[in-house]
C-alpha cells in the first residue's frame, strides 16, 4: 500500500474494538482506496484519556476515544448517552452522526483532530453479584459507572459511585469493593463479568449508552492525495463508518448475552413494567438536566434530541 495509517488503540486485544472494529475500518478503507491505503494497529501506547493528544500531535494517525473518560472536555456527547432511546447501537450510531452534522458540529469539541466516526455501545445494563430484581434495590448499592450521563443516572437511582477504569472492574467486583457495574452486555464476555457479576438487571434501552469517536490526525489526512481524501470522505468516514461500527457493537452484545445464557449460575432479570415506568420518570429528569447543559454549550438541544429519537424510531 502507498499509505499506512498507524492506529493507536486500548482495551484488550480480543475486545471487539480491536478484534472487529479496527479490522472493519481497515477493510472499508482498503476497499474504498483499492488497497492504496491500509492500517497497522498498535496497542498499549497510552491510556485512553491520552489518545486525543497522541492523534493531535501525530504520535498515531488514528485512534478511538471514549468521551466519558475526559470529564469537562465533551458536553455534546452526552446527548446520545441519555437513557430512553429505543433501538440498536447501529440505529443510535447513525442517528448520532446525523445529529452531529446538523446540530453538534458547531460546538467544536473535537477541535484539533479530524472526527471520522461517532458511535455508541449497546444499552448499558446493571451487572451485580447478588441478584437485583427491582429498581428500588439499586438504592444504596455501590456501583461502578463511568462519568457523564451514567453517573447522573446512578446518582438519581441512589447508588454510590465507585470510580475505576474498565480493566479494573473484574478486580473491583471480585474483592467486593463494588456491588456491581453498569456496562453493555458485551462486557460480560469482554471483561469476564460472567465470573464476578452473575446477575443482570435489564432495562429496555439501558441505563445509558456510552459515546465513542474514531479520530484522525488532520495533517495526515491533508497529506493524502486529493482523490483518496475524496473517496474516504464519501465512502468511509462519517455515517458509513459509524453505521458499521454500531453494527459491531450490536454483534458483540449478542455474544455477551449468549455467553451469559450459556454460563451456569448467570441470570438475566428483566425490569418489570412498573420499574420501567419508574425509570422513565428518572430518565426524564436526567434528560432535562443534560439538555440544559447542552443548550448552555450553544446547541439546539431539544431539536437535536428529537432528531435522534425520530431517526432511531424510523431506522
Amino acid at each position, binding site marked *: 500500500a502507498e499509505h499506512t495509517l498507524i492506529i493507536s488503540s486500548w482495551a484488550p486485544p480480543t475486545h471487539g474494538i480491536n478484534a472487529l472494529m479496527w479490522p472493519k475500518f481497515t477493510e472499508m478503507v482498503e476497499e474504498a482506496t483499492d488497497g492504496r491505503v491500509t492500517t497497522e494497529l498498535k496497542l498499549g501506547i497510552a491510556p485512553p484519556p491520552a489518545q486525543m493528544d497522541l492523534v493531535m500531535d501525530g504520535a498515531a494517525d488514528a485512534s478511538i476515544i471514549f468521551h466519558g473518560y475526559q*470529564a*469537562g*472536555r465533551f458536553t455534546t456527547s452526552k446527548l446520545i448517552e441519555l437513557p430512553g432511546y429505543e433501538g440498536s447501537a447501529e440505529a443510535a450510531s447513525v442517528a448520532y452522526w446525523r445529529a452531529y452534522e446538523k446540530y453538534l458540529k458547531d460546538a467544536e469539541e473535537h477541535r484539533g483532530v479530524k472526527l471520522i466516526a461517532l458511535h455508541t455501545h449497546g444499552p448499558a445494563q446493571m451487572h451485580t453479584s447478588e441478584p437485583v430484581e427491582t429498581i428500588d434495590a439499586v438504592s444504596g448499592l*455501590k456501583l461502578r459507572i463511568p*462519568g457523564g450521563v451514567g*453517573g447522573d443516572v446512578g446518582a438519581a437511582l441512589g447508588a*454510590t459511585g*465507585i*470510580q475505576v477504569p474498565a480493566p479494573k472492574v473484574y478486580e473491583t467486583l471480585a474483592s467486593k469493593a463494588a456491588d456491581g457495574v453498569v456496562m453493555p452486555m458485551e462486557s460480560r464476555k469482554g471483561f469476564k463479568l460472567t465470573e464476578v457479576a452473575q446477575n443482570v438487571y435489564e432495562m429496555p434501552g439501558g441505563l445509558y449508552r456510552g459515546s465513542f469517536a474514531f479520530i484522525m490526525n488532520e495533517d495526515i489526512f491533508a497529506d493524502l492525495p486529493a482523490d483518496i481524501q475524496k473517496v474516504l470522505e464519501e465512502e468511509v468516514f462519517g455515517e458509513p463508518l459509524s453505521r458499521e461500527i454500531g453494527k459491531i457493537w450490536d454483534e458483540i452484545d449478542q455474544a455477551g448475552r449468549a455467553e451469559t445464557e450459556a454460563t451456569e449460575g448467570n441470570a438475566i432479570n428483566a425490569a418489570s413494567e412498573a420499574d420501567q415506568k419508574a425509570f422513565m420518570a428518572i430518565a426524564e429528569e436526567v434528560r432535562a438536566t443534560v439538555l440544559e447543559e447542552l443548550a448552555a454549550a450553544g446547541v439546539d438541544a431539544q431539536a437535536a434530541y428529537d432528531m435522534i429519537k425520530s431517526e432511531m424510531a424510523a431506522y
Partner: protein
Amino acid sequence: MSALIHLARRISLIPVLVACLALFVLMIMTFCDVILRSVFNSPIEAATELTRILMAVLVFSVLPIISVTNGHIAVDLTDGLFQKFRLSRLRDAIIHILAGVMLYWPVERVWVLSNRARDYGDVTEYLGIPTFYVGWFITIAVGISAVALIVTGLLYLFAPQYLSEPSK
C-alpha cells in the same frame, strides 16, 4: 557560592515535606475509604481521583532531589573501570549535564499538554478539579530537576568541593 548551595539544601526540605504529607494522606484516605465503604456503606467517591493527584505530588515533589543525589536507578557494572582511569568525575559531570539538557524538550511538551487540557476544560470526575494544575505541577518539578541536574553537572566539573556526596 556555598551560601547559595546551603540555601538550596534548606529549601529542598519543603518538597520533601509536601511529598511525605501526600503519602500520609494517601494512606489515611485509602484506610478511611475502605472502612467507610465496608462498615458504613458510604465510600469516598472521589478517592480514585485524589489518589491519582496525590501520587503525582509524591512522585514529582522529590524528583529534583533524587535527580541530583544519585537517587536514580543506574547500572554500576563499570564503576571500577571508570575509577581505574580516573574518569568518574568527568563521567558524572557529562551524565548530569546531558540528563538535564535532554529534559528541556519533555518539560516544554508537558507544559503544552497541560495548557491544552486547560483550554479544553478538562476536570476530574467527581470534584471537578482542573487537571492542568497537576500538569503545571509536573512541569515545574521536572523543570527544576533539569536545572538542578545541569548545575550539579557544572559543579562536578568546576567546583566539586561543593558537592556533599563525592562522585562514586
